[in-house]
């Protein structure tokens, strides 16, 4: 994708809070914050699924690990944004190392089920280990850590400032992901996805590349999860539930795999449309389902492929 449309989208996103109260209510800014976090989450999945061909159906595990990591860091380590994000990302990356150790040897649906099993086990832990995780009630009221240098600080209870903070990290995450797929590692990963045998023949360590890709993807999903915990001021086992793993696959597929940008389009449709439809009609599930079917039948390459060539 050429630079101009990206910069335009980024500019619109940066300026979006200025319309609150004038053009739309703060509710829509909150919705957009939510969408941005899920776009980053889906981009993280795209790294594994779209670029690495790693079929993960357990990405909620990484997202939830990031969210719980951030929440527990805020409670027990240090009441600071940086501690929350670092612990969240580290927790998710560590989980990805463990999952990757077992799962990268399996392929396709079997890998999907193994990753799914790990996420479900984590979900059960979050429900059962009440002393640490708060059980099915989760951990409410995490509080808003102070972000700033000296006297200049962000007030995260302000919806606009929260939005800008999230946007900054989402853009940073996207930039990192782009760098990764454009790097020699990224090219080798695509080679592995296209043909493992050929990749192996030219000396690429297939297993190592698949593992490392999963760790990057997991860490990025962990960042999204940590942001979500801070944004929601609350974590619950739902963040580890398999429905979320399914949702993020849908978002990535709707937008188009192997594009990274597609996840933003997918998140706008899957989350934005769901929320907007559900405020207008009780029958939104029928409409959303029908829309998915139409999308698959008419734009099977993902909506973003109408504009962008995938790698």
């Amino acid at each position: 994708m050429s630079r101009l449309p990206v910069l335009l989208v980024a500019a619109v996103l940066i300026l979006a809070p200025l319309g609150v109260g004038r053009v739309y209510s703060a509710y829509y800014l909150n919705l957009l914050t939510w969408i941005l976090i899920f776009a980053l989450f889906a981009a993280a999945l795209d790294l594994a699924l779209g670029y690495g061909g790693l079929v993960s159906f357990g990405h909620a595990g990484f997202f939830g690990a990031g969210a719980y990591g951030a929440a527990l860091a805020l409670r027990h380590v240090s009441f600071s944004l940086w501690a929350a994000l670092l612990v969240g990302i580290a927790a998710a990356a560590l989980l990805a190392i463990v999952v990757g150790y077992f799962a990268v040897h399996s392929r396709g649906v079997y890998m999907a089920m193994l990753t799914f099993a790990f996420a479900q086990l984590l979900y059960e832990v979050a429900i059962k280990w009440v002393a640490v995780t708060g059980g099915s009630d989760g951990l409410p009221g995490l509080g808003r850590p102070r972000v700033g240098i000296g006297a200049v600080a962000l007030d995260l209870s302000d919806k606009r400032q929260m939005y800008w903070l999230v946007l900054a990290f989402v853009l940073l995450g996207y930039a990192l992901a782009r760098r990764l797929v454009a790097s020699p590692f990224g090219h080798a990963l695509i080679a592995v996805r296209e043909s493992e045998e050929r990749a192996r023949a030219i000396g690429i360590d297939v297993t190592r590349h698949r593992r490392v890709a999963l760790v990057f993807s997991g860490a990025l999903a962990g960042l999204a999860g940590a942001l979500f915990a801070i944004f929601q001021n609350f974590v619950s086992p739902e963040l580890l539930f398999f429905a979320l793993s399914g949702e993020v696959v849908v978002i990535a597929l709707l937008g188009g795999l192997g594009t990274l940008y597609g996840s933003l389009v997918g998140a706008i449709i899957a989350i934005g449309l769901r929320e907007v439809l559900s405020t207008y009609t009780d029958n939104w599930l029928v409409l959303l389902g029908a829309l998915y079917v139409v999308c698959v039948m008419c734009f099977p390459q993902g909506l973003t492929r109408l504009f962008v060539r995938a790698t």
Partner: protein
Amino acid sequence: MSLDAVLTQLLMGLTVGVNLVLVATGLTLVFGMMGVINFAHSALFMLGAYVGLVTATRLGSFWLGLLIAPAVIGLLGAATERWLLRPLRERYPLSHLLPLLLTFGLSLFFEGSAKVIWGADIVSLDKPGLLGGAVSLGRITFPTYWLFALVAAAVLAVAVWLVVERTSLGLSIRAATQDPMMAAVLGVNVQRLNTIVFALGSGLAAAAGVILGTMTSLSPQMGAGIVLDAFIAIVIGGLGSFTGAIVGSLLLGQVQSFGVALLPAFHTPLVFLVMAVVLVLRPSGLFGAAERR
């Protein structure tokens, strides 16, 4: 546990197991032949239960409901395969993710439709009068309806097994599962067979929906849990393998039954643990061919 308790748990596990076989058959055959994970299977199970409820109430006979629901849902499954999945497969024969997204959309659509038509509340299907109460089986007593659920599902499962293993239709199905291209070259109409198998799987799921729906209750989300179990069962057994689906389902039925009795707090993680252990030891499941797809 006393011997009586063990026997009761065994029988309950078997009841759950044979019903899982009905749900798992459609999933595994559809995957084996078309490489499609049918996400809408849980919705077909649920629609089967509701159609059974409606016919049973309107016509005043549970048995007609049990007969008509699988037929209606079978037709719905056939239409889904013929008009949605087949065109998609013809254009993108290699994609496994597109059918997944398609059937996911369908499951939302069906679930939403059920909410619109029958409401989101939980309703229950009346048991036929003669299946109330409990029967005594030697040392133990067992609820009559559970026994019926066991026998009915077992009869259906055996019938399906006979069709798959002993008829020429079953021979074609097994051939197409192993190698659709070769089966087509040898004169099997694989396209038509796909539709038949999808309809069969949907009908069986609907039958299980009526049987189990009567045992518990009906809601638009009722299919999620059982189909997840069925899916785990076929993953344990080996995706695409019919034998694997039967073994996996019966195994999972027992794991659940004894898990609930012995480790009430941990029976859900136990299921996932069993699946994870099987997959780590045998990455393609118990009866799955290695690296098939």
